[in-house]
Every structure is written in structure tokens, then in C-alpha cells.
């Protein structure tokens, strides 16, 4: 795990810290509400989706607000972190062309700053749960950390891969916008899995993001432990993606400065 080994070096840690601070504060720069947009955006979306869909899915979902938000938090973390880390190398072009600062720090920095945003949305989820009198299943909520970990590992792997690919082909960034939309409809964020007809349900099941969101909802929303096999599967897949990402990133890392 060279990425983590070398970021343990004191100076790199300092660089990581500064990059995270920079990313975090520049995300909502020049906006009046600033960091509050991290809360406001999912909240507004939640209201919108609740107004439109809550009556339709009343039969399947009793607390639509929490159902939607628990999926949305993870989903927006996934797509947001990847799209930011994709552009992180290009955004820091002037640093990369002038200093030998380790390149993976920029990718990791953007993922970590998105993770802080994610924590804010999780806090929002907790607030909404309190307001809507949802029941807290304390024994399983603690377990929800595992799907979050596997999601973060997956994001790091994909982020490393796509950040390099983006240096070579800019339009991956635009393509990602389409992928985001497809994922949003394909990941059961605002509808229950039951509405998909049986022959197609297996295809939705192939989506690893759906695995993670499903496990997270199991812990937080339904209050039961997700099947152990699923948890191990998704963890394993995430690790494989991470290793692949590291291999690809390491291979092209030094060529980046010559490609700009």
C-alpha cells in the first residue's frame, strides 16, 4: 500500500492537510451560504422527492424521507468524490509541472475533503431521523461503518484510475455526468427495488454501488444485519478495485507531467 505508506511521511501528511483545507474551502467559494449548501442541497432534493414519490411508494416504504436520504448520502459521496478526484490532477497542473510533490496526494486530498462533506450529510440524516420519529436501531447502526469503509475504498480506487485517464482524455469528465444519471436511476435511491420487474432485477443487483447502499439501509433503515456474504463480497470487490487503481496510477504517475 505505497499510497498510504508514503503519505504517512510527515511532510506529505502536511501537504495532504493543506490540500484538503484548500479543496474544502474552495468548493463553495464566493457563495453566501458556503458550507451550508452541503446540507441545503440534499435537504431540498429530499423535500422534492418526498412530495412527488412518497404517496406512490407508501405501500413499500413507511418513512420515505429517511429511505431517500440514506441512499442519497452515499450516492452523492460516490459521484461527487469521483468527479472531484478526476479533475484533481488537472486542477493542480501548475503544482505538478513545477514541483516533485507526490501526485497521489492531490487525488487523496479531494476524496478526503468530499468525505467531510459526506459526514455533514450523515449528520443531516440523523437530524431527519429524529424529526420524523424514525426508530434508531443502535446495535446495527454501528455496523453501518463497514459499508461506508468499502464505499470509500472503492471510491479511492476508481478515483485513482480516472484521475490519470482524465489527463489523457478530458471528455471522461463529461461522460461521468451521464454515468451519474444512469447510476441515480439504476441504484434504487428514490424507489424500492420491488417495483422493478423480476427478470430485470438481477441486472440492478450487479451494481456494486447498490450493494453498498442496500447494506447501509439494512443497518440504518430496517435495523437488521446485512447478509455476511454480501458484506465480504463488496469489501473484496472494493479492495480489488483499489489495487487495480494503484497499479494503473503508479504506472502512469510519472508520465503525467509530460502529458499536460
Amino acid at each position, binding site marked *: 500500500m505505497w499510497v498510504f505508506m508514503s503519505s504517512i511521511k510527515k511532510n506529505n501528511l502536511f501537504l495532504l492537510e493543506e490540500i484538503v483545507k484548500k479543496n474544502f474551502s474552495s468548493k463553495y467559494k464566493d457563495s453566501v451560504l458556503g458550507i451550508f449548501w452541503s446540507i441545503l442541497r440534499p435537504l431540498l432534493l429530499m423535500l422534492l422527492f418526498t412530495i412527488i414519490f412518497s404517496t406512490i411508494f407508501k405501500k413499500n416504504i413507511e418513512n420515505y424521507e429517511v429511505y431517500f436520504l440514506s441512499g442519497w448520502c452515499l450516492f452523492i459521496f460516490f459521484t461527487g468524490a469521483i468527479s472531484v478526484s478526476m479533475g484533481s490532477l488537472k486542477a493542480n497542473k501548475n503544482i505538478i509541472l*513545477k514541483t516533485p510533490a507526490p501526485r497521489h496526494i492531490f487525488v487523496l486530498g479531494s476524496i478526503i475533503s468530499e468525505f467531510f462533506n459526506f459526514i455533514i450529510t450523515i449528520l443531516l440524516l440523523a437530524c431527519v431521523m429524529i424529526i420524523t420519529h424514525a426508530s434508531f436501531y443502535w446495535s446495527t447502526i454501528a455496523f453501518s461503518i463497514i459499508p461506508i469503509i468499502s464505499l470509500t475504498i472503492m471510491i479511492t480506487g476508481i478515483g485513482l484510475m480516472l484521475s490519470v485517464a482524465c489527463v489523457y482524455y478530458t471528455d471522461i469528465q463529461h461522460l461521468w455526468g451521464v454515468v451519474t444519471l444512469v447510476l441515480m436511476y439504476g441504484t434504487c435511491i428514490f424507489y424500492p427495488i420491488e417495483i422493478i420487474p423480476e427478470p430485470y432485477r438481477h441486472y440492478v443487483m450487479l451494481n456494486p454501488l447498490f450493494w453498498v447502499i442496500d447494506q447501509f439501509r439494512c443497518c440504518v433503515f430496517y435495523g437488521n444485519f446485512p447478509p455476511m456474504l454480501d458484506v465480504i463480497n463488496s469489501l473484496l470487490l472494493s479492495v480489488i478495485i483499489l489495487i487495480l487503481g494503484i497499479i494503473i496510477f503508479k504506472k502512469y504517475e510519472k508520465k503525467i507531467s509530460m502529458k499536460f
Partner: protein
Amino acid sequence: MNQKKTHLESKKSSNKNSNNKLIFTQNQRDALKSKIIEKFGVSVEESEKILLEIEKKSNNKVSTNTSSNVDLKNNALSKNLNNSKRISKIDENNVRSSNKKRIQKINVNPKINNLDEENIISKSKNNKNNEKVKSSIKKKGIEQNKFTVDKTSSSQNNFPKKHNPKNKNVDSILQNIVPDYNSQISIEVNHVDLTFEVQNEKIDTLKETFVRTLKRNKSKKIKIHALKDVSFQIHKGEKVGVIGYNGAGKSTLLGVITGIYLPDKGTVSTVGKISPLLSLGAGFDQNFSGRRNIMLNGAVLGYDKSFLESKVDEIIEFSELGKFIDIPLKNYSSGMLAKLGFSIATVVEPDILIIDEILGVGDVNFQKKCRDKIMSLMDGGTTVILVSHAIPQIRSLCDKAIWIDNGRLRDMGEVNRVCDEYLKDAEKATKEQLENIQFR
């Protein structure tokens, strides 16, 4: 064994002379001379003179044991000055203060004489028994070895390569004689090749790539061979100037040394902390205040957090920004930005300093400050690599020069010699161009 015998013979001969003189054997002399020539880039005669100087001084020391060190030094200094004056008559422009500096470095190390005396004493005791002498030498081990120079190595190599392990002996001899002499390598560049792939029209969209692969009219990639088999070594404390025409690969070379580019072939190894003064203000964020940007830029340059925090006040003071330091960077003038960048970049005391053109940043006062700061950074044991088109500047600041021509290492050696060659070549090139124009 052979070595030691020759060594003994040399000692014996010196004993026979019975003046307690330190005289090198012919082999040692040859090796030393070539070493001096290589290190200082002087001519053969000059190296002879320097060698004689060394011998004289050491003999003085032995014969007049009572005379104080200071006297000796003064003596040597005046001699050297005379010497350098003599040389300067030959070529006033070339051999200048740098030469004087160089010769001043050559001081006699008392170790040599002490060892010599001990040796002689031991020899007189065991005159008939050679074996015992050998064992006594063995005890002294490494230090004795410094004086034995392998016959074959010195006779073969008039200009010995530094890699040759046999020549380590010469290194250590010089180390004893010249206190400042340091054989520690600080930058080593080994057969470095670097190619940039450039396309005629930049294709960075997927569609373009697909369409062109289907149509099979991919525009050919142009390969720019920026560096071709460049290899050299820079020792600790050396000030090296890099010269060459525009587009010869000077900046690429600096990029390779700092680690921005990875060479296709070959290796680059550096020892110590590198401070590249190529990257003023890399990573500045326009929305942050100057103070925040100090931390950000410092982190990008690889500084320590605690170190940077302790130096913030110094940076602010040096940058002369005063109250502007707490204002967002987007309101700075370009001069202020450059001042801040320079102040952050030069706050460290690096082992290796890399400069791409001496920076004249800011107003007149600050430019002078910049220059002073760079000079102070260049002092001492810092290894300096300076890229500049100002040949006089390189002559005055550097000991050695590297001439890069068309991606190749054309020449490396004493600064004045290389600069002369370079200027000569440049003159020739322009003449050729002029002639071509006339013929048309």
C-alpha cells in the same frame, strides 16, 4: 603486496634523501596531477606547480617544526598569490578570483607529516626486518593506504574516471591535502534519456481517438528527444552552471534532477534536500490570504509543518508585504506575488539549490535583496545548479560548467574553459548563419 613494496621503496628513498621530505612517487604524482586537473580544470603545467607547492609546503613543515601554523599559511598564501598573478598575466580574463579561492583551499594537512615521521621511526627500528614494517603498516590500515597508489591504475588513466575504485586512493590523498575537498556525490545522473511525445494536433477526446483509429489516419506522433544519454556527477558543495542554446534541454535537465520528469532510461540519484527555485508560487490559491498561502505553498514545496510555522514571521518580514499579508491573493499585484513566492522558496537551507536564471523579482531594492539572499544560500556546503544565459554571471558564481547541446552533454569541466568553448561555438554558429544568408 606489490603496492606495499612500492610504498616502502618510496619511503626508503625518502629516507635515503634523509631530509625528511615528503616526496610522492612518480605514480602518485601522475595520479594526483590528473586528479587536480580534473577537479580544478587547470592545465598540466599549473597542476605541476600546485603539486610542487604542496610538496614544498609539507617539507617546510617538517624541516621547521617550530614555525607556527599561521606563518606557514601566510607563506603559502603569498606564494599562491604570486602564482596566480603569474597565471593571470597569461589570461587575465579567464583566471580570476575563483582561481585564487581554489588555491587557498590547498592547505597542508599535518596528518601527512605526522604519519610520515612515525613511519620513519618504525622503519629505523626494524630496518632489517621488512615483515615487521609491513605489519606495522597494516595496523595503521586505512590511513596508510591513502599513500599507496596503484601503479597500474595511475599509469593507465591520465584522466581517471571517478567511478574507478582504484582511484579512491587519490581521492583520499586529495582529501588529506585539501580540507574542503569532498568526494561525496550529491547528484548523480546516469545515462538519462527522455522523450516527449507530441502530436501534431492534440487529440484528447475519446471521439477523436475512435474516429481516427477507425479511419486509420492517426496523426503521427512527433517524438522530441529532449535528453540523450546524459550522464555526469556533481559532488557536494560544487557550484555548477548549465549553459546551452535555447531548447537544448537545460530546463528539462533541471526537471529530471528535481524529479518532475521521470527519465525513460537511466537513473538520477540525489542526496539531501532539494530546493528548486523554479517554482515560485506553485499552488497559490487566489482566494486565500497571504498567510494561508504561505502554509499552502510551503506544503507544496515539501516543508515541515513545525518548521514552516516557526518561519512564517521571517517570510512575512522578508517579503515586505506588511499589512497586505492578510488580504486575499487576488488583490495582490504581480510584483507582490513574486515577492511572496520568492520569500517562501528561499526560507530553507537546502543541500541542493536549483536556480533557473537568477531571479530579479520585484522592485530595485528587492532585486538586490534577492541577489544577496541567493548568494548567502549558495555559500557553504550547498550544491548549486544554475541555469543562465548570462555567461559572466556563470563565470563569477560557478566552479564548473555543463554544456548541453541538442539534448546531449557536450562538455563538462572547469567553468572558464567550457564557457570559452561555448562562446567560440556560438560565434562560429552565427558566422555560419551569416555566410548562408550571404550565399543566398
